[in-house]
Every structure is written in C-alpha cells, then in structure tokens.
C-alpha cells in the first residue's frame, strides 16, 4: 500500500466515523425525537469520533514516514557487503545516493551488482514497511475510534471535548510562528558555528578580502578561499544607500502630496497605482534592471566620459529604490494621516502656508513614525535578493564608487548555495554565516522600527 493510499484511507475512514458517531449518539438517546437528552447535539458526537479517528492515525502515519527512510537506510547499509560497508562517511553518502537513484529508476553514477542487490533490498524493506504501516494505522483507528464510539453515552460531554481539541489545535497553529523563528535561528546558527570553527569569526567580520572559491588544485587560478566579509557588507550598504536615496525623497514627497494636497480623485487613482509597484515580483525588477537600466546607465556614463561597469551598483540601487518607493510612501502616508488635525489648524491659525505647516509642524510630529518606516525600508533593501542577483556583480570590490560593480550579502548567499553543496565545505557554510548576519541585522532594524512606530502611534491615540 502506498502512503497516498493509506492517507486517503484514513480520511475516508474518518468520514465514516462521523456517520457512525452521529448514528450511535441518536441510538443511545433512543431515536431521533429524543436527541434532547444528549449532553451535546449529535453532530458533536460525530466530530468527536472523527477526531479520535484522525489524530492518532495521522500521528502514527507522520512519525512512521518521518523515520522510515533513516531506519531503512541503516538497515540497507548494515546489509551491504563488507568492502562497501566500511567506506568513509563521505563515500558512504555517495553509495547511498546511488542506491536511492537505482530505486527511483534514475541513472546512478556507478552501477554494480552489489548496489543493485542493495537497491532491491531497499525496495523490499520499503514495501514491508508500508505494509506494516497500513496494518498499524488500521489497528490504531479501530482501537481509538472504536473506543470512543463505545464510550458514547447521553452524558458524554462531546461538545466540550471537541472544543477543547479545537482550541488545542489553534494554539499549536499559533505557535508555528515561534517555531519558524526558532528554526531560522537554529539552522543558520548551527551551520555558522561550524563555519566559524573553520574560519575564525574575527577574520570573517573584519577581513578585507572575499573570494570564497577554494582552489582544488594548487595550480588553479582564482579562488584563494578568503572569507573577509567587509567588502560584501560595504557593497550591500552602498546599494541600499543608493536605493534609499531614490526611495526616501520620492516616497516621502508623494506621501505628503497625497495626504496634504491631493484631491479625493487623484488620491483614489494614484494610491493603488503606486501600490502596483510594490506588487511587481522582484525578479521582474531584476530583469528590468539588467536589461534596461544597466545599459542605459552605462551609455549615459559613456556620454559624459565616465567608465561605468555593466553591473554597476548604481543600476541595481536605482531599481531597488523604485521598488521601495511604495513601501516608504504608504508607511509615511499612515503616520502623516495619524498627525491630529488640531496641530495643522494651529499652524494655519498662526498664518503659516501649507508647506510651512507640513515642514515645521506635520513632519516633526510624524518624524518618529517616518524614521521607523525608513528603517523597515532599509531592512527590506538589505534583504532584497533578486534585483541584486540579476543586476549587481559577483566580485567583491571594496569601493564607494557607485559606478563600479559591487556584490551584496544576498548575492553571495545565492551564488554559494546554487549548485553543488557540501556541508563540510567552508564555501557552503559561509552562506549560512552571511545569512546569520543578514538575519541579525534585519531583526535589529525591524525590532527598532516596530518599537518606534508603535510608540509613535500610542502618542496620538
């Protein structure tokens, strides 16, 4: 029985259990007319049966499949001929991969009778395991659902039990956010610690040379395996700074215009149009940057006699700025609208013009909120990936010249992790160290920004 069939069977059986539960409840109550002597309405008894059918069976099912592959691999390895069994760990993973490839019918890198036998063994064990799983699941269902059906009495508090389980499930669902954060922290931290075991953390944080390609042979050119991340951080900052230089003035001015000057019609038309900018996928911006903006920047530079790299920081930064405009403008719009009208009226009463009111009353009052919004935008710029992957460079130059190519943290993570990954290689692990830095920096920015925005909101509420 394949896992899919087992799963479908579980679902079908739980549907049947509902029917049985309702039926049994009406029966113990003594027919349809006297359902009122039941503690809960009959449907709750049905749902109770469903829960008792579904939850234990799915738990068994999930755990079984979760550990099946590991246990079977162990068994297959134990059954390998001795010359294969005592291979070093890294060769062993290759052998196991080959076996799995043969099992799934793909082409394996090496093909010999021992592996074929192992693959047959593997297949056999999987079939046995699924057969046993089917039996175990059915027994579980029979036991738990049968038990609850037998327990159905008029005084069984079915509704309370069902509601308790639902509430429990809801709590589990809401803790997923915590587990996600925990998962992120642990996964990047764990690999980063392994990385810092190979490369000292001081060298990573303060080194000025970044070339993660490690030469395999001594005579190979290129990569020296240097992991000084300063040029990468500097490149990220440069591109983010260019992006903010575009996004903050344009976003802020358009927010001011829309909230203070624009009529209803313009506001209704312009706001959603600007939101479209935020809805365009970043890969589209990346393509736009590489195809349209970068050549244009290059030509414009050539016209005034400047030598612009074809993957200049300027092009990537400009497009990233465009992407962030709606982010800045909608956040600023919110905080500007939150400034009480009384403050504006006060300024007008003193004879200030509208722009003077905005510049000297509204903006100072909204400043904390705007700063919070800008911080969120910075964190987004730092974490933005696709635009820089497609339009910024790969080589890590330590430069402040926006016309040269620089690389960013996200670009490096992507290039290090696309393709072959070996989790004992500093090259792969470096990506996780960069990811840790990215996570920490954006987390700090977000926490400050959310705190500032919330404090500011409370001020006027």
């Amino acid at each position, binding site marked *: 029985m394949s896992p899919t069939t087992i799963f479908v069977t579980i679902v079908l059986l739980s549907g049947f259990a509902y029917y049985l539960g309702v039926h049994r409840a009406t029966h113990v109550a003594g027919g349809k007319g006297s359902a009122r002597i039941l503690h809960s309405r009959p449907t709750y008894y049905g749902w109770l049966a469903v829960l008792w059918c579904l939850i234990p069976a799915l738990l068994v099912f999930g755990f079984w499949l979760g550990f099946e592959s590991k246990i079977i691999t162990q068994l297959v390895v134990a059954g390998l001929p001795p010359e294969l069994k005592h291979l070093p760990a890294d060769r062993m993973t290759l052998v196991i991969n080959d076996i799995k490839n043969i099992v799934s019918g793909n082409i394996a890198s090496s093909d010999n009778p021992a592996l074929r036998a192992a693959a047959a063994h593997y297949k056999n064990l999987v079939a046995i395991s699924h057969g046993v799983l089917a039996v175990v699941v059915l027994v579980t269902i029979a036991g738990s659902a049968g038990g609850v059906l037998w327990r159905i009495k008029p005084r069984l508090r079915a509704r309370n039990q069902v509601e308790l389980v639902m509430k429990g499930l809801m709590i589990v669902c809401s803790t*997923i956010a915590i587990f996600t954060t925990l998962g992120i922290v642990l996964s990047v931290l764990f690999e980063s610690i392994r990385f810092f075991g190979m490369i000292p953390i001081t060298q990573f944080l303060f080194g000025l040379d970044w070339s993660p390609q490690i030469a395999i042979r001594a005579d190979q050119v290129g990569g020296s395996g240097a992991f000084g991340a300063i040029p990468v951080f500097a490149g990220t900052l440069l591109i983010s700074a260019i992006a903010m230089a575009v996004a903050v003035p344009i976003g802020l001015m358009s927010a001011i215009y829309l909230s203070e*000057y624009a009529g209803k019609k313009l506001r209704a038309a312009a706001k959603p149009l600007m939101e479209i900018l935020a809805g365009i996928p970043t890969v589209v911006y990346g393509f736009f940057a590489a195809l349209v903006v970068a050549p244009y920047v290059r030509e414009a530079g050539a016209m005034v006699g400047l030598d612009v790299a074809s993957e200049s920081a300027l092009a990537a930064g400009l497009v990233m700025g465009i992407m962030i405009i709606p982010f800045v403008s909608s956040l600023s719009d919110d905080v500007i609208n939150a400034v009480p009208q009384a403050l504006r009226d006060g300024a007008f009463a003193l004879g200030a013009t509208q722009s003077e009111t905005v510049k000297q009353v509204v903006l100072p009052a909204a400043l904390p909120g705007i700063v919070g919004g800008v911080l969120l935008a910075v964190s987004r710029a730092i974490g933005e990936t696709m635009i820089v992957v497609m339009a910024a460079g790969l080589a890590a130059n330590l430069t402040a010249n926006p016309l040269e190519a620089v690389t960013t943290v996200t670009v490096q993570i992507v290039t290090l992790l696309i393709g072959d990954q070996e989790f004992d290689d500093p090259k792969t692990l470096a990506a996780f160290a960069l990811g840790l830095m990215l996570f920490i920096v954006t987390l700090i920015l977000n926490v400050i920004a959310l705190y500032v925005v919330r404090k500011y909101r409370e001020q006027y509420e």
Partner: protein
Amino acid sequence: MSSMLKQEARVTSAPKAPDAPRPRTLDVVHAGIGKRYRAEKRFRFYGLAAIIASLLFLSIVFVSIVTNGYSAFYQTFIKLDVFLDPALVNKADLAEANFNGLIKKSLRNSFPDVKGRRELRRLYALVSPGARFKLRNMVFEDPELVGKTIKVWVPANDDVDMLMKGHISRDVQHGGRLTEHQLAWIDTLKRQGRIEEQFNTTFFKAGDSREPELAGIRGALVGSFLTLVVTLLLSFPIGVAAAIYLEEFAKKNRFTDLIEVNINNLAAVPSIVFGLLGLAVFINFFGLPRSAPVVGGLVLTLMTLPTIIIAGRASLKSVPPSIREAALGVGASKMQMVMHHVLPLALPGILTGTIIGMAQALGETAPLLMIGMVAFIVNVPQGFTDPATVLPVQIYLWADSPERAFVEKTSAAIMVLLAFLIVMNAGAIILRKRFERRW
C-alpha cells in the same frame, strides 16, 4: 512659519534707524509673502513630481516588458515538403526512423545548388532541432502518412526567428548571426511564401529547453500551481486558526506577546532567510526531495503565514462585539460563537488577505532558489514530489541565458506572471468591495 518669526525677531532686535518709523508687522509679512508663496509652489511641485516620477517608473517597467515580450507570442515557421520515404521510415518500427535525415533531405531538395559539408550544415541550421519531433509526432499519430509527401510547418531556428522579427541585424558587423548565404536562403523562402510567423503554441505547451524556439512555460506554470496548492492548503487553515486563537481566545500574557512579536518580525524577515531555513531543515534534516513543489510550498507557507494571520486578525477585529454578545446571550459556547457567527462575517476579509498572500507567494523567487527549484527541468512535473521549477525562477533562468531569443521569452513569461498577479489582486479587490460590510 519660523521664517516669519525670525523676520520679526530680526526687526525687533535690529538697531533702529533714527528717522525711519518702526515697520509694522504686517509690512514685514507682506514683504516676505511673495517668497513664501513661491516656496509653497515649489513644494507642491516637488510632491507632484514625486508622484509623476513613480508613475513614470511604473509605466517604463510595463512598457519595456511589453515591447520586449509581445513578439514571443509569435514564432517563425518554415514550410517543408517532406517525402516520408518508406526506405527510411519503417512503419513497423517508427521509433527507429531517422526523421532528422528526412528534414535534411527536404532542405537539400529545396536548395539543390548548395554543396559542401559546411554550407549544408548552415542550411540545416535554418530549421530548429525540434523539427524532427514535430514530424515524428505527426507520423506516430497517423502512420498512413508513410510513403506520401507532406507539407509541414516546422519551427525555424531562433536566429532566423530573431531576424524575421527584426531583433538582430542582417549585418554580421552589427551583431548579425547569420551568413550571407543563409540570408539569401531566407529571402528565397520568403519569396516563395514558405516562411511565416504563426501563433506560438509551443510557448504554452512545452517545458523548458536549451533551444529558445522550443522553450515553453508549461512546466513552470504547473510547478507554480502545485507549489501554490501546497501553500494554500497549509497556510489558510493554519493562518485562520492562529488568527482566531490570538484574536478571540488568547489572554494577554507573555506567551501571546511572544507569538505576536514573532509574527510581526517574520513578516519583515528577508525571504532568502526562509530559503536557508528550508534548505537546512526540510532538505538536510528531514530529507525531503530537492526541487520538489512540496518543499517549495512548505517554505512559502512559512512566508505567507504572517500575512494571512495579520489580515485575519484585522478582519476578525472588525466584527462588532454586539454579534458576539448576541450569540453568547442565546447560549452559544465561545467556540460556537466564533465558528457560527464571527468567522463567517470575517471570512471575506480573511480571504482577501489570503489571496494577497498567495499573490506574494506566486511572485517569490529567492527562497526557491535555495531549495533547488532552480534546476534545468524539461519535463512537466506530474506530482508534488517531482522536480519542478516555478514561473519566477523560470524567468530568472531565462534572463541568465545569453541567446537573444530568450530576452523576448523572458519578457513574455513576465507578462504571463503579471497577468496572473493582476487577476489575483483584482479578485481580492472585488471580493473586498462586494462582501465588505461596514458596521
């Protein structure tokens, strides 16, 4: 305003000329008013310019994508007269037949004066390597064709296609990729009416390919669909359950504060970090298959959950307390109150948030690169664990390809992606407009 105050301050503190009377405040105000009005005008202009600039950027993005991409919906085809020689095509063993040879022969017959291996190879290069598959499929469908001469439109090579569409120059010096002879052959074909542009069905029917004229988005579309199905099936129930718990049941304590802080933070964590999580946890730790829609769906679920939870809570919050009190008043339990009354009223808002979250997930690229959905995959995925790619990643892959023909394919794929996003967002807006209730 402060400039006004400053002027006044200057007036009072300035040493008074002995004969001139002290200027009245009103005069000072009048003296500066022109300047202040000009500043006002300038400020207004800046604001308007900012809006116009952002709308201009928007239109430039759209215009450049559309002008680059619309031509990908058409493709150049060449008409060949192919004699299905029974000597070369054995009816009993069609799989072994040399269809490529048939096409070459037909080309040789059309241009009998082409001699020499190199020239012949250039002649064959006019037709796409996919031509033989088209011929093969035709014969497989109807084996009776063997022995007849059939007229068949086969796709032209991408360079020919680009030339016909005017994307590359005829001149080798200006980036032209075709030789003089090839150009002459194309002109001959044109005169004979045997080369023309037709609607490009391959683009919607085929998976990825190294040959631009054979590449399509079907595989990526199916991959995106499968991934989104997983995302929706997981994130909607989990998100709604979490929103209900946090909004209706949770007491305000440290634990719920912790959850809230986490949700707000996750909403702002860079998407690529979720990719790292997926790689380390789902693929390395749990051993799920790489490049599979199910892993992509799991990662995107974690990413969209905050969006759905936040939208769901806002929507639940907007249901007035009187509804809850009425339900409790007639004896409903708290769970019944939520499930029977509050949730149905909040559902349109939750669905709107979900659609917006799904639209974000559809456009997401970076985390999927991390979990290997960036592989070159020709086959259309059949299930949730098959290797697959998604539309944005396909766009990224094509954008990286050097062939000129992939530029228009990329733009066309972007147009399809944007069309889906527009439909989804429009759906969300309509849903909100139709079902939103103001209490």
